[in-house]
């Protein structure tokens, strides 16, 4: 009972944040509402007994990724989203289509997914076990993702650095080496 209460409260917060993300016209507000969504999701994870996931959710998503977003928003000093006329087609088909689709999906989930209750904290994810899984069963994906992250870092550096500055750095290096 209490769990259902907690679930519904944070679920509502979640949905509210998501909707707010759509409604808000300023990216920074959207970002903050997304942070809210993530925080409440972390609580949902806790409710599901995935403490580690919850913590990582907060640290990585809310604490790192979203900070990055905010940082970029501040850096580019992104202002209000300017109004450009949306296509009428989207208005005509998009919204009803979305509504129908979501209703359909919700109905299907409610009807056809296992209605077995999920005990709160049903699956305590001790970090030890998760680490075991990561480094044994999922070793290859783990390594692959590490490579992916490396590539991502390099790509980000190259993309975000001024071309000119890259030139300078390389030339300087040439000088140093030569």
């Amino acid at each position: 009972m209490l769990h259902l209460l907690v679930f519904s409260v944070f679920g509502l917060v979640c949905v509210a944040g998501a909707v707010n993300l759509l409604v808000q016209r300023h990216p920074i507000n959207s970002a903050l509402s997304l942070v809210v969504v993530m925080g409440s999701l972390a609580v949902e994870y806790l409710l599901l007994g995935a403490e580690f996931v919850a913590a990582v959710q907060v640290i990585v998503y809310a604490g790192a990724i979203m900070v990055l977003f905010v940082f970029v928003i501040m850096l580019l000093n992104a202002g209000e989203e300017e109004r450009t006329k949306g296509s009428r087609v989207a208005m005509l088909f998009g919204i009803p289509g979305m509504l129908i689709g979501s209703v359909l999906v919700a109905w299907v989930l409610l009807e056809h997914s296992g209605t077995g209750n999920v005990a709160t904290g049903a699956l305590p994810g001790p970090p030890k076990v998760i680490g075991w899984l990561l480094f044994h069963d999922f070793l290859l994906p783990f390594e692959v993702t590490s490579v992916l992250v490396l590539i991502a870092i390099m790509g980000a550096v190259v993309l975000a650095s001024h071309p000119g500055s890259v030139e300078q750095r390389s030339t300087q290096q040439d000088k140093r080496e030569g």
Partner: protein
Amino acid sequence: MTPNLHLWLIPVLPLVGAALNGLFGKRFSRQTISAIALGFSGAALVMALWIAAQFSSLTLPCIETLATWIRAGDFQVDFAFYLDQLSLVMLLVVTGVGFLIHIYSVGYMWEEGGFYRFFSYLNLFMFFMLTLVLASNYLLMFIGWEGVGLASYLLIGFWFTKDSAASAGKKAFIVNRIGDFGFLIALFLMIKHFGSLNFEQVFRIVSGLPAEATGAGLLTAIGLLLMVGAAGKSAQLPLYVWLPDAMEGPTPVSALIHAATMVTAGVYMVARSHVVFDRAPQALMVVAIVGTLTALFAATIGVCQTDIKKVLAYSTISQLGYMFIGCGVAAYSAGIFHLMTHAFFKGLLFLAAGSVIHAVGGEQDMRRMGGLRHHIPWTFWTMTAATFAIAGFPPFAGFFSKDAILWQAYSSPYGSWVYWAIGVFTAFLTSFYMFRLWFLTFFGEYRGEAAASEHVHLAGGSRAGAPAPHEHGHGGIHESPTVMLIPLVILAVLSICGGWVGSERFDKFLAPALHSGVTAYSPEQAAVATPAPEPREHGASEGLLTSISILAAVSGLFLAWLLYQRRPQLPQEIAHALGSFYDAVVHKYYVDEIYAAVFVKPLIDGSTRILWHGIDRDVIDATLDNSAEGAREVSDAMRHMQSGNLRSYAGWIAAGAAVVIAYMIWMGTR
């Protein structure tokens, strides 16, 4: 048991010469080239003579199989050579006359560009002609048949820079195609019904068949088709038109290919497949009629021609007509006999004409000649012999053969007095236009521009713009070099004595090859044969007929003398008197124009309108263009999806995902 004769060497020797000259001739000196050409063709002649020497000891026909060419099921074609009396005669004629003409050409073409080309073509022709003659099956024969066509095309268009020559070559080739078409169909029919193309098998099968006296059947069809081929190759009506134009080629070529050998291939083929014709009286009749008409037709045209070579060309056609008359009345031996003698004197005539042209410096119009007999006596005398021979004066060769043909035309079971009458009239015409040529060329006084102005004349001459047959400009009318005279003399001797064999002996000699006598009077043939007009009075009427034909020849001579020697102005009056008919004859009855209007133009228009515009442009090209255009338009419409607007892309993605999800839901909840 016959010794291995290595018959295959005979065709192959000239081929080697052709290959050598054709591939490396550019670097050889003229001496080397002529040495090679003469050497190999001479070697072929020597082999032919050697074979002839031991001929009596051979068991005929002797067939030498070299290799298997085609084997499809039980149908088989071999590279095999077939030697019997008939092919021996052809062999000797081809190699002999060919060799002589080679010698002559060395002198005639000495100054020409493309010397090596000429001789390699000439040897190539020899190769194909000998293949044709020696082939032991129709297919190999057909190879030679096509090959000589190719060689003649190459040689007619030897001066390919000259438009008329090139087009003449093409004309010859195309017209021959028509005949070859018939020939091919005949071969297909044989394959279908006899399952073989080898002479022996075909003839054995055919011999078993009854004659198609009434109503045309398979054999008639084959015969007619073969005749079509023969008409194409041997310039018979209606396919003769290429031969006069073929005179664009160098004179030796005209002599060798278009007088002596190639054009007689049709006659040879008909004679070779006499077994078929013997059992197809209708076909025989067609052959005879065609021959007769051609003889008369060409002779009349020949009367009015002023170009010396054209006159000879039409006379060739008409003589070929004689040969076909001979074959058409189942007197093949007579036809072949005339073929041989004709090869001698007509070759000689052409060579002599070439010598004359050579003498007057490229002039071919007889009206610009005259009085040459003092300047070029050798040519004069040899030509005289030839003229008398073709005119059919005894004891020249032409007399015997033509007389045999006329007699057979009258007396043979297939013959009739109509053939004979027309033949005689043609003989009269022949002697008339030949002597007309003779008088115009050698008597009276020289009518061409003064010999001094020969070069001017050359410049403005009929060969303007093309390499003249001889640019050696040492002025004055002059006798040809010895190397050209030797063949003349030899051929003159032959055309005098060639006929002394006598048609009976010739007939006997050839009898085993083409049992003309046997087939003619074999009982079943006799049953179906059209009854010979009272064979009793043979003896009497033969002498009579002979005298009549002699008379015709003499009267021809007299008339020519009267018109062109005695009263030179008379021809114009006659021409005026005849009026339009004369014009028609001068313009060769407008046959070329008619053909152009009836066949060529519709063909060109049809292929232009229907094939090119209609099909190629409006269907094929249009298909491609329209498909490309359609693709362009479709993509033009589609590219608006590529709005460059990120969110529209996202919309497409979302729509697709929605569809997939809906499908999955449907599948899952079903």
